[in-house]
């Protein structure tokens, strides 16, 4: 069954594809594959990976927390001197979030949950999810799940497009 949004001009997939292809062509033009040294290969791989992430984040713009966080990370990675400030900001954000989460948990445990359903039961997985999803540290669970869903969708798009590109290239 055809997915109709493939053909839409403004869909996430098309936006990501165009951006990523442009970045790829830039990378390849910058340094054609003539050398075979592993380091250069690795560098190229890193650049391509960053290009993929960047294209995806740019396709989403700032509509999503994870895209904003990812763009921030990519920008600060390129600019080393700002990384300290951003890392401290992120850390303080995380600290605040952890504190509020703990407070919430304490509050929830004191107030009786009538249905017995645990609103705060899955802390370990929650933290893991926060680490995985970019920008997930500064969100409560509800928003985090939202972001995760959108992130998953974008990741699947990314993987699909990259697969097709790779297949196309290697044919």
């Amino acid at each position: 069954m055809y997915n109709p949004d493939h053909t839409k001009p403004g869909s996430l997939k098309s936006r990501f594809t165009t951006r990523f292809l442009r970045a790829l062509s830039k990378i390849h033009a910058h340094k054609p594959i003539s050398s075979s040294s592993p380091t250069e290969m690795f560098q190229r791989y890193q650049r391509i990976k960053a290009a993929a992430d960047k294209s995806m984040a740019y396709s989403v713009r700032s509509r999503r927390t994870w895209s904003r966080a990812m763009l921030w990370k990519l920008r600060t990675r390129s600019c080393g001197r700002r990384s300290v400030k951003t890392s401290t900001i992120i850390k303080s954000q995380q600290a605040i979030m952890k504190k509020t989460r703990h407070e919430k948990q304490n509050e929830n445990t004191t107030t009786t949950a009538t249905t017995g359903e645990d609103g705060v039961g899955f802390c370990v997985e929650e933290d893991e999810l926060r680490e995985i999803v970019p920008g997930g540290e500064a969100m409560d669970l509800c928003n985090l799940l939202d972001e995760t869903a959108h992130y998953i969708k974008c990741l699947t798009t990314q993987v699909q497009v990259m697969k097709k590109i790779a297949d196309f290239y290697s044919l």
Partner: protein
Amino acid sequence: MDVGEKDKFELEKRNENGINYQGSGMSAAWQFAGGGNLTSTPMSLVPSDNPLVIGSSSGSASMVDSFCSNLWEHPSNSQSLGFCDINVQNGASSSNAMGITKGGPASMSSSIDRQFDMAWNAASSMLKGGMFLPNATGILPQSPSQLPADSAFIERAAKFSSFNGGSFSEMVNPFGIPESMAVYNRGVGLMQGTQNVFAIGGLKSVSGVESQKSKLIATETSGDACLKTENRATQESPHKNERRSESLVWSNEEARQENGGSGNESNEAESSDGVGGQDEPSALHSTGCEPSAKGVSSKKRRRSIQDVETDQAKGSQSPVDAAKDGAENQQKGDRDQSTVMNKTTTKHGKQGSQASDPPKEEYIHVRARRGQATNSHSLAERVRREKISERMKFLQDLVPGCSKVTGKAVMLDEIINYVQSLQRQVEFLSMKLATVNPRLDCNIEGLLEKDIFKSRAGPSALGFSPDLSVCYTLLHPSQPGLVPGGLPVMGNNADFMRRTLGSHFTPMAGGFKEPNQLSNAWEDELHSAVQMNYGAGAPSNSQEVNGSQPSGHAEVEL
């Protein structure tokens, strides 16, 4: 609880799809009205962007995107907006046949589900001006154009109000929705040649409402009136009447047209009960919950009319909670009448005589269910839990193979694993792309985009394009550079090159394998190879590489 109502909703909506995409001529008026009415400037772009591609999938997704992009400008609504965006895009992608009235029930239901959710979120976030009712069939961007034209819209809007349980209560704009619905309900509820009533009702609502909304409602009314005469004789129309009249009642309250409102209310309440009785056999897929819920809600409505203080909140909640609880415990005659508002809402206790509604409703109106604690803390907690479970369900749909998983912890584990696997796949693919030499001569972007937007079986066809021969010749000179590669991937690539360009041609191994299997095979071998000495240990790598060749790549026979 929610699922049951959703099912009802889905099934009914399915039948509405056929009549959704009509009255494109109305959309123009709607767009103008919409543009004028919108308080938030980004929204004005949406109607103008919206071509009359009603029913076409391409339009909807782009509209969805632009629509949602406008939504995201509201920082306060990021949460629900996010959900909305996901839903929108997912819904659009999964079953865009929504607009084409195709697709099996299962897909429809899931897509409706998401689009429904999307609609709620959209409504909550944006419809401060009461402009857009959630078009629960999911083609939200088309909803502006369809609103005046959609007789099913009213039913959906009504269903929205009734369906709106605790999980969505925050998304209800009690002002926005009822106001716009008021017009519809007036127009359609009194369907038998009541165009005059429409006009009157429209005018009434216009007078009672802010000028922004009034324009919208007037256009809606006119458009709706025209279309109501056209779209008739559906089984749902009595159903809709019921809904509309039901929402008409509390929408009247919201619009603060007590004079006409109260009169109409009593009429509509009665008619709704009557219609509800008739509708029961005729309702296509509604369970017994609905009519009973409506009956209950109508009773609630009458009571709430007298309740001035909680006028506004109850107006939106009573049908909502009535329907919800009706679904849970059918025909619960005696309801828990204690409305527990959030503490914040009490501060805003609107009296029945307010002049103007605030365009923004930021507080969560929650009603305590029967037999549950009415503490505001536990209420908020309950709302939060429901939201979380709602999103978990949605994630369950996203993550493949999670339908059987029950329990949040396991579900979260699955989600985490899936996200990690996706991230690893991206890494692997970028590594693969780093090693593959791109074809320099052909129009890569054009070909690729064409390819990518084809179905999955598409890429195999490209293997036989005439460009290949040119590209292979190009690749050939670079082969020597690739052969001594120490990387496992490089070794792979070199092998591949040698095999395709060299003396022996490998016939296509069982046709073009499923990309999934392909990438998985690649991923596995690559990961295991990478775990070994990176860029060293050539013999073991090459062994690995050679062993993987038959399983992995599909060769093109030159």
